[in-house]
């Protein structure tokens, strides 16, 4: 662990980077939405994005779930790793949809829904957001409740439940998300059917 002062400076730098990034994203959104290139519109847009990025600073500082007195920034994502993660997620989404199509159009409707719970302790709340959203978009599972790292997932078939929470080890998806955010694979992956 480094000294406290170093940590403070590092957090300040990350926050400044996020501020600049957010201003640029908002200004880009303004440019696309307005589609006008006169100077007065550009100045108004830039001023508005600056003010919004400044005012929303405290909202984007999210406290860690396990480590006390540590904050994460909402836009401080591992963008390079996301480039590899998103195509995999898209492929999973397409598989999920073919699954749903089969289930819905089958006249017998072979479903056996159940709610399963499992625990996955991660320090970064943004990682939880990613994992919950990915679970919702992938085959046969919808995140129902998430509190303090305990997931309640509604699975539509037993096969879907087993692919998310295998009998031993942890599921492919939670491993990938933990990898994405450099989370240590600590005591997690213990699932139980309810």
């Amino acid at each position, binding site marked *: 662990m480094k000294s406290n002062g170093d940590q403070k400076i590092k957090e300040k730098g990350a926050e400044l980077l996020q501020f600049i990034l957010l201003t640029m994203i908002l200004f880009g959104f303004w440019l696309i939405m307005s589609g006008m290139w006169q100077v007065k519109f550009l100045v108004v847009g830039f001023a508005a994005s600056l003010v919004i990025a400044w005012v929303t600073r405290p909202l984007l500082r999210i406290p860690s779930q396990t480590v006390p007195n540590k904050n994460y920034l909402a836009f401080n994502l591992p963008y390079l790793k996301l480039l590899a993660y998103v195509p995999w997620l898209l492929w999973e989404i397409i598989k999920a949809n073919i699954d*749903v199509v089969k289930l819905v159009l089958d006249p017998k409707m072979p479903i056996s829904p159940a709610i399963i719970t499992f625990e996955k302790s991660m320090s970064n709340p943004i990682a939880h957001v990613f994992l919950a959203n990915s679970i919702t978009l992938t085959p046969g599972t919808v995140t*129902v409740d998430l509190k303090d790292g305990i997931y309640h997932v509604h699975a539509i078939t037993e096969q879907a439940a087993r692919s998310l929470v295998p009998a031993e080890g942890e599921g492919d998806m939670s491993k990938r998300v933990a990898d994405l955010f450099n989370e240590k694979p600590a005591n997690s992956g213990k699932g139980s059917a309810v």
Partner: protein
Amino acid sequence: MKILAVFLILAGFFFTVVAAIGVLRLPDFYTRLHASGKADTLGIALTLVGLGIYNGFSLVSVKIIIIAVLIMLANPIGTHVLARAAYRSGVKPWTHKGES
């Protein structure tokens, strides 16, 4: 390029139809969420991307792609918020044993 756009639009429309049938046909609230949360998201996104490709590269296409990305992000969140509200109010999931 036009053929790809038409294919994407038709595929997206198909998924939207499946989502609607699923929401009408499945037995309980949580299973209906599976239909609306997955098939609808992909259906809308595919159709919008198809329309964007059909329109060619312009500001309007960029806006259409922005809507698609927005829906890809917002629809799972909406599904999750609904599911959590129902779960915390004690809506029981349907099972083969209960048959309720």
